[in-house]
């Protein structure tokens, strides 16, 4: 109860600090000193500190199951394990916004103390823009989604956290994703400040690169965790579903990845300045759009915590305020620079190739944006409801992946400014022939998929082998880039092999029944019942025999949660190096027959590992940067 009050008042204090810091910033901006007013540091620190107190206030309310707090009442229950009581803090709309604010205030404080070598005016402008965003979020939280609403009379028991959100991967997924999203807000503010201050230079590129790397790393890991959760918990049996909510997190990632490459050109050649700024702005705008689409309830999914039009309206206007603000600043301050921007690029050089890489990424980004937003536009304009599914994305993305992969396997050999045509190397040709043979063997023994996939396969192998070759070469320059590129090629390869080799059997079975299929037999041995802490579970004992008399046991579960009363089905997954055996059951009528879905998913674990390698590359690059200082 006290924690609740402390939380509320510290949050309000945080907003007051935001408002008081702005006049100080403006005054300091106009002064002729080169030193930032000390008060700015302390106010920024206290702002972060009070939001932190407020956040802990909410955490404590959750731990104590203080149901006088409406958020706790709606999302917690006394029988819940302590771990999920804590993660329940950000597993709901109000709490997750408080977390946004916490990260926002933390990052701006970090920016202030970590940017000492930068010009004063630029730093102050960045803080001003960032404070505008922070005030927007403070108002949003306090007006529309106060996490400390008081309930009286105090309910005896809470409504409980949605059971599908009770998962370790999901407990850390939102905070990590937010670190990525909010990191992009720093990039946004600092790029606006850099335009106004006319500070878009090699220095700036070098300085902002760490923020880009931080956001990119966390965004990648955040998306990965979400994907792992969807695979294990939702039992959809795959790693990516092109669900609107997944796409919404992919959009800023693509834009940020483009930025990550493009900033290199700015750093080396002071070129592509406008483009860098556009990407910096669009990354954050896409993050906020994602928040809007998910939180307003326009997209219906497991992430839609609240369907409150008032909230949607607030984010919508805030979002367009940010868009117009950045557009106006961009058009006013970026004018006279545009003339000398056409520094000539050589056709065969690293700059050109990065530009082409950006064009590819922009194409993938537009496919995702159109696929996600088109149904919304169509519904408003014509009242017709459609849903865009995986075939749309696959058809549009796959063909362009082929030139992209070819391109990616050539580019790392190019040099800055000007490069000769690559010498046709016997080694590389041999490597390519090897890839052709591997792909041919795959299709000969495992069947032909489709034309595009069969063209894609050798090139994927080729990229994979060249990245390995790079990895082993003696030249250890760009080590981080090599790791990431290796991770990426590995990811594409795993996805491809996964789609070629996976198989699936769906059947309705009763206890004691058997079903034989091409690859073996499914035996439904027995059912048992068990009691968990806040659920009852029905466990099916299954045995799978394959044709070589090798058998495994799988135990999928149906969980009947008491608060709220929801039935979830937990897949049982046996993971091995080369494939995952995945079995999930659902009850059909009276719990006598069960719908059983058995899948063999090849190379599943490699998809997670390769995505992790991709992210680690970013971390290496960051580490290298910090050491150079």
């Amino acid at each position, binding site marked *: 109860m006290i924690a609740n009050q402390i939380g509320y008042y510290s949050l309000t204090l945080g907003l007051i600090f935001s408002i008081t810091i702005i006049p100080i910033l403006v005054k300091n901006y106009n002064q002729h000193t080169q030193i930032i007013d000390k008060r700015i540091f302390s106010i920024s620190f206290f702002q972060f500190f009070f939001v932190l107190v407020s956040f802990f206030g909410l955490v404590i309310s959750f731990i104590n199951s203080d149901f006088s707090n409406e958020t706790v009442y709606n999302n917690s229950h006394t029988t819940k394990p302590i771990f999920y009581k804590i993660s329940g803090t950000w597993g709901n709309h109000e709490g997750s916004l408080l977390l946004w604010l916490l990260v926002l205030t933390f990052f701006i404080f970090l920016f202030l103390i970590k940017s000492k070598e930068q010009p004063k005016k630029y730093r102050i402008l960045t803080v001003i823009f960032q404070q505008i965003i922070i005030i927007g979020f403070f108002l949003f939280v306090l007006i529309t989604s106060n996490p400390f609403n008081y309930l009286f009379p105090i309910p005896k028991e809470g409504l409980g956290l949605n059971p599908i959100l009770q998962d370790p991967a999901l407990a850390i997924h939102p905070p990590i994703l937010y670190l990525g999203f909010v990191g992009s807000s720093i990039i946004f503010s600092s790029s606006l400040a850099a335009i106004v201050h006319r500070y878009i230079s090699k220095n700036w590129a070098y300085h902002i690169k760490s923020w880009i790397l931080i956001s990119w790393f966390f965004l990648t890991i955040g998306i990965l965790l979400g994907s792992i959760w969807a695979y294990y918990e939702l039992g959809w049996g795959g790693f990516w579903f092109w669900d609107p909510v997944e796409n919404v997190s992919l959009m800023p990632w693509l834009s940020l990845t483009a930025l990550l490459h493009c900033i290199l050109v700015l750093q080396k050649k002071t070129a592509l300045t406008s483009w860098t700024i556009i990407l910096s702005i669009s990354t954050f705008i896409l993050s906020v759009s994602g928040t809007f689409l998910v939180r307003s309830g326009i997209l219906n999914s497991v992430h839609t915590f609240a369907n409150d039009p008032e909230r949607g309206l607030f984010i919508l206007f805030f979002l367009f305020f940010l868009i117009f603000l950045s557009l106006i600043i961009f058009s006013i301050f970026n004018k006279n620079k545009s003339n000398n921007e056409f520094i000539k690029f050589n056709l065969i050089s690293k700059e050109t190739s990065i530009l082409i890489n950006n064009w590819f990424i922009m194409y993938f980004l537009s496919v995702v944006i159109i696929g996600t937003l088109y149904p919304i536009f169509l*519904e408003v304009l014509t009242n017709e409801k459609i849903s865009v599914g995986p075939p749309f994305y696959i058809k549009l993305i796959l063909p362009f992946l082929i030139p992209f992969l070819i391109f990616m396997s050539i580019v790392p050999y190019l040099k800055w400014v000007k490069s000769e045509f690559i010498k046709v190397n016997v080694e590389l040709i041999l490597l390519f022939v090897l890839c052709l043979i591997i792909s041919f063997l795959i299709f000969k023994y495992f069947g032909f998929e489709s034309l595009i996939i069969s063209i894609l396969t050798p090139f994927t192998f080729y990229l994979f082998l060249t990245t390995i070759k790079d990895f082993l070469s003696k030249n250890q320059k760009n080590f981080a880039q090599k790791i990431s590129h290796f991770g990426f090629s590995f990811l594409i390869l795993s996805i491809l092999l996964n789609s070629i080799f996976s198989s699936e059997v769906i059947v309705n079975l009763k206890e004691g029944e058997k079903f034989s299929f091409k690859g073996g037999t499914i035996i439904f041995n027995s059912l048992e019942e068990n009691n968990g802490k806040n659920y009852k579970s029905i466990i099916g004992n299954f045995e799978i025999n394959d044709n070589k008399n090798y058998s495994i046991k799988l135990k999928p579960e149906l969980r009947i949660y008491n608060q709220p009363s929801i039935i979830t089905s937990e897949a049982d997954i046996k993971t091995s190096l080369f494939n995952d055996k995945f079995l999930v059951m659902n009850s059909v009528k009276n719990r006598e027959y069960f719908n059983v879905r058995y899948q063999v998913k090849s190379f599943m674990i490699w998809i997670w590992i390769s995505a992790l390698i991709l992210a680690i590359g970013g971390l290496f690059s960051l580490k290298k940067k910090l050491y150079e200082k």
Partner: protein
Amino acid sequence: MKNKILFIALLLFISFCLVVFFKSLNNSNVYIPDTPNKTVKEFKSKSLFSEDEISSEKILVNSDYYILNIWSSWCGPCRREHPKLMELSQNPSVKLIGINYRDNPKNAKNFIKKFGNPFSFIFVDTNGVISIELGAYGVPETIVLNKDKKIIKKFVGYLDDKSFKELNFILK
């Protein structure tokens, strides 16, 4: 000049997006479960104002329509929709039955005293079982039954003006 045209075109396009998003906000996306023609099963509970256990079969009689309203004194939205329920109780072809969800009887009685009683009967649902059996998602929730105790409509969340209009249309 060219830049200016581009800038204006971009502004127009973004404004267009704003309008579309704004409109789509009003498209309700609330998920209302499809429960066509399900008959409400018999349930038994105490009345809020007496100690005897009464079966729902004895209450759900002699009316063209029945409205089951799940409410609680601690629930803010219930308070907001209460005047609408009071208005509904004037309609002679409808019988309103309250289900008092997970509430302290004392608070519930105070609530009724303060805001008026639209219900012809109030079941006490101390542990929430009745509401869950009815397929409730939370409080408040309003379930409309016809003469044969079949569910014809369900309103999840409080009755706003739009759903109230819809409700009155059904009862005509």
